[in-house]
């Protein structure tokens, strides 16, 4: 681990300029991903750490149909927001099922979106083959011990999982990420924010170096919608998902008027299940529909021996959350 400079700018524009001009600089917010990678695992080297935790990017404000969440709002702060409880209950569930209370007091919403994979091969600098760390070097996970790895959007070059719980309901909701760079501001839907591994698994999202997430805009669910988040994991608590699913349904007279569905624990990116939504929309809220949606959502997985079990588990996770949210018995 090399030495780094620590700076704490007092305005957003200054911070953005500082990081944009220095290829070896990085923003530091909650630190629960970055300091782990820099100080403990030693797989990220930095020349300068730009602490943004005191910038005015914290807080939640409610509009008519959306919630605007400052990027430095912590996971616990977002979970405690009354509008989240009332109009985005599955966001609250996903938040409180993630990490631990200590980590949720530190980790920010912006940092949650940008969290790096928990793949042990990526996080072990003694492992030579990792296309995410060293493009072109190969993937040790594909032939190694893989359990907490992706089956959707994965390929032989990289099966690293995006382990966020929060991002699962956020992609289902069509949340929008607001970004500030030296050239100005822009907005990107979260569903278009992430980049699939392709030939360059090291490129994970559309951010240019120095661009800063300032705010996340989350559309509220209709008042009469029902939602839920189901997380399946190896331990009862404080564990990453093997599979998870976020669902929001608007049901009228036994028919699904509008479905939103996204998957966690299975994707190289938080996975919106659009084809499954299309199948659900207008269909009767019955088990047969749910199973058909699950089959569509898990079409063409890429599995290795350690992750093959996730295909059926993810399907059952989808069926279960749709049953729970709709109130239909199994």
């Amino acid at each position, binding site marked *: 681990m090399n030495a780094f*400079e*620590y700076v704490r700018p007092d305005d957003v524009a200054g911070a953005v300029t500082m990081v944009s001009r220095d290829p070896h600089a990085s923003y*530091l917010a909650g630190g*629960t991903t970055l*300091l782990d990678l820099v100080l403990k695992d030693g797989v990220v080297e930095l020349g300068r750490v730009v602490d943004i935790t005191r910038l005015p990017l914290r807080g939640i404000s409610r509009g008519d149909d959306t919630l605007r969440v400052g990027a430095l709002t912590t996971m616990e702060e977002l979970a405690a927001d009354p509008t989240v409880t009332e109009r985005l209950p599955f966001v609250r569930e996903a938040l409180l099922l993630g990490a*631990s209370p200590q980590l949720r007091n*530190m980790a920010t919403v912006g940092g949650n979106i940008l969290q790096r994979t928990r793949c042990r091969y990526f996080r072990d600098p003694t492992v030579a083959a990792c296309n995410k760390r060293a493009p072109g070097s190969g993937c040790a996970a594909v032939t190694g011990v893989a359990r907490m790895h992706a089956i959707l959007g994965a390929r032989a070059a990289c099966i690293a999982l995006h382990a966020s719980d929060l991002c699962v309901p956020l992609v289902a909701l069509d949340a929008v990420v607001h970004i500030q760079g030296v050239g100005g501001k822009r907005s990107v839907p979260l569903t278009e924010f992430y980049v699939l591994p392709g030939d360059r698994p090291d490129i994970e999202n559309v951010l240019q170096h120095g661009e800063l997430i300032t705010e996340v805009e989350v559309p509220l669910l209709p008042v009469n919608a029902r939602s839920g988040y189901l997380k399946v994991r190896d331990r009862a608590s404080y564990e990453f998902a093997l599979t998870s699913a976020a669902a929001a349904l608007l049901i009228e007279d036994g028919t699904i008027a509008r479905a939103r569905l996204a998957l966690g624990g299975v994707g190289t990116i938080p996975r919106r299940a659009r084809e499954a939504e299309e199948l659900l929309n207008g269909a009767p809220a019955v088990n047969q529909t749910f199973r058909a949606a699950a089959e569509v959502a898990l079409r063409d997985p890429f599995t290795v021996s350690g992750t093959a079990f996730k295909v059926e588990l993810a399907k059952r996770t989808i069926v279960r959350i749709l049953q729970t949210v709709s109130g239909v018995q199994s």
Partner: protein
Amino acid sequence: MDIVSTLRVNRTERPFTADTRTTLLDALREQLDLTGTKKGCDQGACGACTVLLDGKRVLSCLSLAAQCEGREVTTIEGLARDGKLHPVQAAFIRHDGFQCGYCTPGQIMSAVALLKEGRAGSDEEIREFMSGNLCRCGAYPNIVAAIREVARLGSESQ
């Protein structure tokens, strides 16, 4: 690269000089001689290093000391007042809420925060909101009993 900074720990200003890479945990233990806060996994997985930062529980192993300048840090050494143990400390002793004791400062700091957060409504809730603190001796039932008792006594005294 060194930084010269001041931490406010247990209601006292504590100046220190350390490398920029120093975590809050290492600053407390190595610079300020506050060794009550323990280093377990040192990577955010076990909770042994839990302290309060501006009253909220955080992991000191994943915080830079430099980030904490001007903020109020409370460690296990800061809980007792006038020689009298904090009610959670006393309850851990009464209920034998530890065996080897290494995770205990983190367990107690987390429990103090949990009670303030109002998360002691049931044993199930206590277990869920203490899940960030691992105990390899397996003292969990007694830890839950200690927290349950303080929650009950607290609600009776109100």
